[in-house]
């Protein structure tokens, strides 16, 4: 594991340590980015990739370690303003654009003095001509599709003469074709000028191997590998990312045990959720799902694949009984359970006990006195049986880790064995272990006969878990084979 040295680096992080409370997020991590290269930063969720790069961009102050930009060490505190002044730019996984403002205003934000819209617009057009990242300067960001918003983020950085570009999981929100185009662009950018460099944060081995010159792998806050990409293989990277013991398990996951028991005699596989020519409007009355027809049967996971904003949000809520349907037929069981993607906003009473959170499950329909003793017992059972790490049933939901919160939410949804379950981005923001636990719980539920409708913004997660796949593009839903390329094209609305 020798560091690829030779030419001097444009950005060096040396011996970086960072703790958040009890969590050791980064331990003595060193990273060197050579000029004119694409450097892939690989690792599972929670491995510390984003934290490391937030250190490099001045958003997180490290407990120890030095930042060196083009040979000169940076003084502490190192802020985003200084990072930008030194030519370092970062595009976050969740965009940091002001959606109510125009592209030009977003690009100009952060400077000082007078703001001249036409000067900024000219600059945006100039960047568009030079790099191919074309944008309308006067467009409001909220009106742009996700891929254009990402372009806007990159142009924002380029307008400040950024030479080292940090991209945090840039392909996560894109459809496969868009992702390929972006990676192509990244390659061109790095090759265009020897002062340029790109750090690509990703958990996708394929992207790293295809595009990067150098690869650094983090596992649980430590650097476990640093090598030239041509010396790496999928296997060596997977070993490094997951550690030897967990690799076997992860590879098992890739090969989904497809439809556990087709010949299951118990009740056959009847349709639990059934929709025919279903129209759904969002709360503002905009038609988001058009004439969707599908079914979810007992003992199967049906996965929905879609790019952001295709109507999946509304489709899932309509099936979960939280959004009225406009026309068409929808048959779902009354006691269908729902696990929304935003845990803190939609699923938990953070300042209430776990027992109270359990009681929330059917708070809308209960009458009279609540059986608190029974709720407390059920909560304790659930903590034991579903491996939710919490001191007791009386602790506040806020005190649990994200993974345990999600395990609790899923356990609560499955507590009274509902006939059907709708899940939305069930592993967003979870680390590897918690993700695996959630996947296991979903498969167990499927095997127990529950009909599951799943959406994940991560296409690979959909393919990993789903027995059947539905592609949703601009509100139009259709069944597609479980093939990555076909699903990817269908998400973008291309004919298969």
């Amino acid at each position, binding site marked *: 594991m020798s560091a690829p040295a030779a030419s001097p680096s444009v950005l060096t992080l040396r011996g970086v340590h960072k703790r958040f409370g009890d969590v050791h997020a980064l331990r003595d991590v060193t990273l060197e980015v050579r000029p004119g290269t694409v450097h892939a930063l690989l690792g599972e969720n929670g491995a510390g990739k984003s934290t490391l790069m937030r250190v490099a961009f001045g958003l997180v102050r490290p407990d120890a370690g030095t930042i060196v930009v083009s040979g000169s060490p940076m003084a502490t505190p190192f802020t985003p303003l200084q990072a930008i002044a030194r030519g370092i730019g970062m595009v976050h996984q969740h965009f940091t654009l002001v959606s109510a403002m125009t592209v030009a205003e977003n690009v100009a934000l952060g400077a000082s003095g007078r703001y001249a819209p036409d000067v900024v617009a000219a600059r945006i057009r100039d960047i568009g001509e030079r790099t191919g990242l074309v944008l309308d300067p006067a467009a409001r960001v909220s009106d742009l599709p996700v891929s254009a918003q990402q372009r806007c983020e990159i142009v924002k950085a380029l307008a400040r003469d950024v030479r080292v570009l940090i991209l945090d999981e840039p392909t996560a929100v894109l459809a496969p074709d868009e992702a390929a185009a972006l990676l192509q662009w990244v390659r061109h950018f790095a090759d265009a000028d020897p002062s340029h460099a790109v750090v690509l944060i990703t958990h996708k081995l394929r992207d790293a191997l295809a595009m990067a010159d150098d690869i650094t792998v983090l596992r649980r806050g430590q650097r476990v590998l640093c090598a030239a990409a041509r010396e790496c293989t999928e296997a060596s990277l997977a070993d490094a990312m997951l550690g030897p013991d967990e690799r076997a398990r992860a590879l098992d996951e890739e090969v989904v045990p497809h439809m556990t028991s087709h010949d299951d005699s118990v009740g056959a596989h009847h349709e639990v959720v059934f929709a025919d020519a279903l129209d759904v409007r969002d709360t503002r009355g905009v038609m988001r799902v058009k004439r969707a027809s599908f079914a979810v049967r007992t003992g199967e996971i049906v996965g929905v694949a879609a790019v952001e904003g295709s109507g999946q949000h509304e489709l899932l809520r309509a099936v979960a009984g939280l959004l009225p349907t406009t026309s068409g037929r929808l048959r779902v069981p009354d006691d269908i359970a*729902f696990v*929304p993607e935003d845990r803190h906003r939609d699923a938990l009473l*953070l300042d209430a006990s776990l027992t109270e959170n359990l009681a929330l499950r059917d*708070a809308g329909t209960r009458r009279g006195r609540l059986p608190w003793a029974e709720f407390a017992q059920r909560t304790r059972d659930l903590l034991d049986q579903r491996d939710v790490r919490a001191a007791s049933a009386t602790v506040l939901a*806020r005190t649990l880790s994200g993974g345990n919160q999600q395990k609790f939410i899923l356990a609560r949804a499955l507590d009274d064995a509902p006939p059907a379950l709708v899940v939305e981005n069930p592993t967003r923001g979870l680390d590897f272990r918690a993700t695996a636990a959630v996947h296991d719980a979903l498969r167990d539920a499927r095997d127990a006969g529950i009909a599951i409708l799943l959406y994940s913004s991560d296409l690979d997660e959909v393919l990993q878990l789903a027995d059947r796949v539905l592609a949703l593009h601009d509100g139009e839903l259709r069944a597609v084979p479980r093939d990555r390329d076909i699903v990817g094209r269908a998400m973008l609305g291309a004919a298969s």
Partner: protein
Amino acid sequence: MTATPTSSVLAANVGREGRGALGQVAQVATLVAITMGLLVLLLAVTGYDPATALRALARGAFGSWYAFTSATLVRAIPLALTGLAVALAFRAGLLNIGAEGQLLAGATATAAVLGASGAVPPLLSLPLALAAGMAAGALWAGIAALLRQRFGVLEVISTIMLNFVALYAVGWLVRGPLQEPTRIYPQSASLAKALQLPVLLPGTRLHLGVLLAVSLAVALWWWQRATAGGFRLRAVGMNPHAAATIGRVDVARVSLLAFLASGALAGLGGAVELTGVTYALYENLSPGYGYTAIAVALLARLNPVGVLGTAVLFGALQAGANAMQRDAGVPIALVNVVEAVLILLVIASDRLRGTRAEATA
């Protein structure tokens, strides 16, 4: 329509329970002690003799059995009822700052009903009038609830506006339709003895309203804690999104009912004040009970039984402030400063603890 995230944050944070009752009382005592220290400082700075002023304060509030029952406790009754109103609304994530207006609406309706109920036997007309007061308070709060649910108007602003409207409406009514028969004084006709709330302890002014306040506080405490409806109210206050998504709670309905109930409690406060203390409607019927109620509720951590305690505390403060003005010449406006400081201290101690908890999480 769902509640705003702001208000849910408030209900979650201000109303956090989990420490023992003893610890809470100790914390309130600490805050009160700090406030008293600041009060002494303020008195000294503005040139009053703190010792004389505080002696007058204590004498006015607790100096005699009569002072305690007829000054402190009599003031504590409307404070408790409006305090319960505010606590209930805050618990549901509704920032009802309009208890003052709802109290006035309640007093007005009570005066109107009693003024028109000549032939009805008092045993019937008195409960009827109290019910009318509750209904009027609920109606006045209902305007704010409607504005919020239909048009997304922040209830903080609408309830404050409605306070002013209620005040001017009373000013007009007591010089117009509800003025006493001689048309000399800007007030309604005084209630006949039979139409007044009975005095509870002979020789004092403590009236039946105190039993109403205590029983309502206990009932509300039990209801919030034990019943499905109470849990729905708390859940909506803590996180309306989760209540709707996971609990399938009809958030708009719970909010509306909570707002109406809050208004009814404040309206009852006005009805009780009119029938138990003032016996007539006039403009300055309330010395800002509805505003002080915010401090009462927050200091009690929105706990209905706790409201009883803090209502007595603020009742004592107001009774004492009257004596302080009489005996030491200290302006009564001082009470507002003390209330505001207490509210700020409660927020600060909550936030500082909250920030610590977040940092160690």
